[in-house]
């Protein structure tokens, strides 16, 4: 005699979510404050909704995860010069528009602070706290004269395109910012 297991859809769904949470990947190519902020808002929001979030930092996006004020230690002078000219640090990112040599960005930050809105550094701390994984692209790190030791602590992986695709193919939300 066969027994038929009664399927409670609510329980089945909960079990499914337990085993395989919704996944989100975000490629952060831009180093603009407004775009990076959006990326972190989506990342922290998704993590709060129980999703598993991975952020891939590449090109200008790497500036967000650089230690502020640390100079490049790249081996050749060309890359070192590039790493020097291209300032890094979560708090140094310019707005994509209305930057006005720093004035526009300063005003925007002031307005945000007055309204108790978290900026990029605060959002980044929150993302780490919520378990968002950070991956730094090794190819562009080299290209831009950024060495691993000049990045913030807590980078989960240093990897390339295959790692990204392996994650993205199983994710429900994949964003490129």
């Amino acid at each position, binding site marked *: 005699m066969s027994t038929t297991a009664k399927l409670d859809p609510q329980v089945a*769904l*909960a079990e499914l*979510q337990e085993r395989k949470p*919704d996944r989100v990947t975000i490629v952060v190519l831009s180093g603009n404050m407004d775009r990076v902020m959006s990326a972190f*808002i989506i990342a*922290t*929001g998704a*993590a*709060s*909704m*129980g*999703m598993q979030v991975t952020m891939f930092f590449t090109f200008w996006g790497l500036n967000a995860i650089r230690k502020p004020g640390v100079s490049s230690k790249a081996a050749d002078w060309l890359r070192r010069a590039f790493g020097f000219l291209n300032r890094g640090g979560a708090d140094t990112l310019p707005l994509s528009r209305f930057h006005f040599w720093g004035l526009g960005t300063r005003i925007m930050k002031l307005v945000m602070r007055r*309204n*108790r*809105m*978290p900026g990029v550094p605060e959002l980044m701390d*929150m993302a780490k706290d*919520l378990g968002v994984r950070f991956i730094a692209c090794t190819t562009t790190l080299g290209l831009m004269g950024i060495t691993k030791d000049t990045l913030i602590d807590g980078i989960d992986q240093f990897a390339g395109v295959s790692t990204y695709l392996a994650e993205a193919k199983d994710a429900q939300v994949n964003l490129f910012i």
Partner: protein
Amino acid sequence: MAIQWDVHLDTLGLFCPMPIIKTSKKIKELAVGQVLQVVSDDEGIKKDMPAWCETTGHEYLGLEEEVNGNTTHYKTYVRKTK
């Protein structure tokens, strides 16, 4: 008719995504079956809280709006289900 609640969370003055992040942390402190009241003055919460509940599986109980002069306080209610 006011909805009965057990735990209160004040997110007044905070913008997206802070109310949701705080909710996700606060809900961990509740026992299953308890109700969390989240008060926010960000109108986005009216849509965001039901969406958060739908994704996380907690039960959305409803919304109360309280107008004080030119600010509105949105009170949302969530029952912890797991």
